[in-house]
C-alpha cells in the first residue's frame, strides 16, 4: 500500500473544498501514522491560512481550477503554506510537493507545481507587499461574508477576533474538583515537570503551557482532569445546581459539560444526557466511565420530544445548541472552508426549534441555560430576544460576572489574542 503525507494532506483539503467531511474526521483515519503530526500541522495550517494562500495563488496562476483539479489547487496551497509558514527548507518543500503531484496521478502538473512554487520563492517580497495592500478578509484569511457579519456585530473587537482565530488554541484542562483541589492538581503536575497555570474565570480551569498527549497527564485515566476549554467550564456554576434536582443536558456529546455537571453536584436526582448521534453518544459513555460518573444516556433528536421524554419536567436544562462554531475557529479552522450563509440560516432555525421544544420540558421556576460556541448574534442574543418576545413565561436572568461582554439578553465571550477562552455565548432563562 502507498501513502504520501503531502498527497494525503492535499486530498483532505480537496474534500473540504468540495464541502465533504470535516477536518477532524479525515485526520482521525491517519492517527496511527507516525507522520500524523506533520500531516496535522499541514492540514490545520492550510485551512487556517486558506483564504490568504488562495489569494497568493491567484497572483501566480490566474486560470481557475476545474472541479476535477481541486486536488491540485489544494496541493499548491499546501506548497505555499510550507514555503510561507513552515520551517522546511524551500528546496525540500518544493521537491516533495512536486513529487506529490505524481501521487495525485497528475504527473502533467509537475512542471506547473514547480513553476508556481518557484515563482512564489522569487517574487516573495512583491507578493507579500501586495497582500498587505489587499482587503482584510484576505490578509486575515477569512471568508468575506463572515468578516462582514463580525465587523457589523463587533465593530470594536472584530479585528482582534480575526487575529485570535488564526492563533493556535491553548491546551486547557478541567480539574476534577470532586477528587482534588486545583492547587493539589497543579502541584502534582508540577512534580511531573509540566508547566501550567490556573485559569482566571473558571475555578476548575488549568492552562498547560506545552500541548502534550493526555496519557502524560498524571491521573488522567483515573479521572483527575479532562480536556475542555475554559469557557465551557463556566456552565455548571451558572446552572445553580443543588442536591435533588432533575437535570437535562440536551445536546450532550461529547459529554464534557455532562461530566462537569456531575462532578460539581453529586446528588442530582436525575441527569439525562441526550444526543442524536449514536457514535457521539459513545464518546459521552467513555468520558463518564473514565471519570466514574453515571448519567442516563438517551439517543434521540431533542426536537422529537415524544421519542425521548417521559413527561416529567426538569429543574435545569442545558441547551448547548448546535451552532456555526464561529467562536472556535482557532480549534477548527476548517469552519472557514465549510460554513456557508445557508448553513447558518439552517442552524438558526434548528436552535429556535430546540428552544421551543425544550422550554415545554422545564418546570415552572426552573432554569434553562442556552449556550453556543458562536459569536454570531443571530444565533445568540437575537435568538433569545425573539424567544423572550414570544414567551410571557420566560424571564431573562442576567449573569453577573467580570468576564465577557454583557449583551441585552446574555453574556458573550469573544476570542481574543490575549485571553484564553473560546468564543462562547451564555443566556440564562427562568420559567415563571
Amino acid at each position: 500500500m502507498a501513502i504520501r503525507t503531502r498527497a494525503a494532506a492535499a486530498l483532505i483539503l480537496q474534500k473540504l473544498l468540495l464541502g465533504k467531511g470535516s477536518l477532524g474526521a479525515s485526520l482521525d483515519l491517519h492517527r496511527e501514522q507516525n507522520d500524523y503530526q506533520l500531516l496535522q500541522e499541514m492540514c490545520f495550517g492550510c485551512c487556517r491560512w486558506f483564504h490568504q494562500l488562495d489569494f497568493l495563488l491567484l497572483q501566480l496562476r490566474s486560470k481557475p481550477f476545474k472541479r476535477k483539479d481541486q486536488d491540485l489547487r489544494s496541493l499548491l496551497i499546501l506548497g505555499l503554506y510550507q514555503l510561507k509558514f513552515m520551517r522546511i527548507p524551500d528546496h525540500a518543500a518544493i521537491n516533495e510537493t512536486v513529487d506529490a503531484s505524481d501521487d495525485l496521478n497528475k504527473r502533467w502538473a509537475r512542471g506547473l507545481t514547480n513553476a508556481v512554487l518557484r515563482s512564489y520563492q522569487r517574487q516573495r517580497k512583491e507578493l507579500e507587499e501586495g497582500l498587505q495592500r489587499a482587503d482584510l478578509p484576505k490578509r486575515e484569511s477569512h471568508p468575506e461574508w463572515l468578516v462582514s457579519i463580525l465587523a457589523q456585530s463587533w465593530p470594536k473587537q472584530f479585528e482582534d477576533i480575526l487575529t485570535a482565530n488564526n492563533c493556535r488554541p491553548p491546551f486547557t484542562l478541567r480539574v476534577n474538583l470532586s477528587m482534588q483541589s486545583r492547587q493539589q492538581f497543579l502541584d502534582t503536575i508540577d512534580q511531573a515537570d509540566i508547566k501550567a497555570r490556573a485559569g482566571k474565570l473558571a475555578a476548575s480551569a488549568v492552562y498547560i503551557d506545552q500541548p502534550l498527549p493526555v496519557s502524560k497527564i498524571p491521573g488522567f485515566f483515573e479521572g483527575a482532569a479532562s480536556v475542555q476549554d475554559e469557557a465551557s467550564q463556566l456552565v455548571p456554576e451558572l446552572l445553580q445546581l443543588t442536591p435533588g434536582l432533575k437535570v437535562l443536558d440536551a445536546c450532550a456529546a461529547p459529554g464534557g459539560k455532562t461530566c462537569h455537571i456531575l462532578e460539581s453536584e453529586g446528588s442530582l436526582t436525575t441527569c439525562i444526557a441526550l444526543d442524536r448521534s449514536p457514535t457521539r453518544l459513545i464518546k459521552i459513555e467513555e468520558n463518564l466511565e473514565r471519570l466514574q460518573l453515571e448519567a442516563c444516556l438517551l439517543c434521540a433528536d431533542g426536537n422529537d420530544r415524544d421519542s425521548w421524554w417521559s413527561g416529567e419536567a426538569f429543574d435545569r436544562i442545558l441547551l448547548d445548541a448546535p451552532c456555526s462554531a464561529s467562536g472556535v475557529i482557532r480549534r477548527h479552522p476548517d469552519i472557514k472552508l465549510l460554513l456557508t450563509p445557508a448553513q447558518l440560516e439552517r442552524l438558526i432555525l434548528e436552535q429556535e426549534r430546540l428552544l421551543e421544544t425544550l422550554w415545554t420540558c422545564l418546570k415552572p421556576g426552573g432554569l434553562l441555560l442556552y449556550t453556543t460556541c458562536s459569536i454570531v448574534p443571530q444565533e445568540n442574543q437575537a435568538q433569545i430576544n425573539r424567544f423572550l418576545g414570544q414567551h410571557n413565561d420566560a424571564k431573562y436572568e442576567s449573569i453577573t460576572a467580570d468576564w465577557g461582554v454583557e449583551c441585552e439578553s446574555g453574556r458573550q465571550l469573544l476570542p481574543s489574542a490575549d485571553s484564553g477562552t473560546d468564543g462562547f455565548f451564555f443566556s440564562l432563562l427562568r420559567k415563571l
Partner: protein
Amino acid sequence: MALLPILEFPDPRLRKVASTVTDFNEKLEVLIHDMFETMYDARGIGLAATQVDVHRRLLVIDISENKDSPLTFINPEFEVIEGELSEYDEGCLSVPGFYETVSRPRVIKVRAQDQSGKPFEMTADGILAVCIQHEIDHLEGKLFVDYLSSLKRQRIRNKLEKEHKKSA
C-alpha cells in the same frame, strides 16, 4: 539483497491466489529482507509477496515515518472486531499514482506467523488495519481498484496501460 520489480495493474499475475508458506528457511528470510528493501525504496507502507511475483502468503508492513517499525505477517488471517466501516484514500504500489476512497471494517484481529514460524495475534485499527486488509487482499488476487466503480477502474486501467506503452 536486491530490489524486486513490482508488478503493476492490470498485470494478470496480480490476480493469482497465493499459497501457504510452509518452509521457514533462509530463502524466506532473504525474500522478506528484499521485500522490505523494495517497499522502502518505493516509499510504500506495505507490500504483499504477490506484488513482486512471489505467490506465497507473506506480507511486510511499516507504517512509521522513520521506517523503523517493520512488521512481517506470514500466512495472515483476520477477523472483524468492529463492523463499523471507515473510509480511507488508499493507494497501491501496483497502481501507482492513484488514490481512491475505500471503506473497510475499522478494527480487526490478525493471526499470523512471524519469520521463524511462531504464531502471533494482534488487534489493529486506523491505518494499520486498512493496510493489513489491503495487503491480505493482494494474497487473494484482489486489488483496491476492485472496490471502485467499473467506470473508475477502467479509467485507471487505460491510463496505466498508456503509461506502460510509453515506457516500454
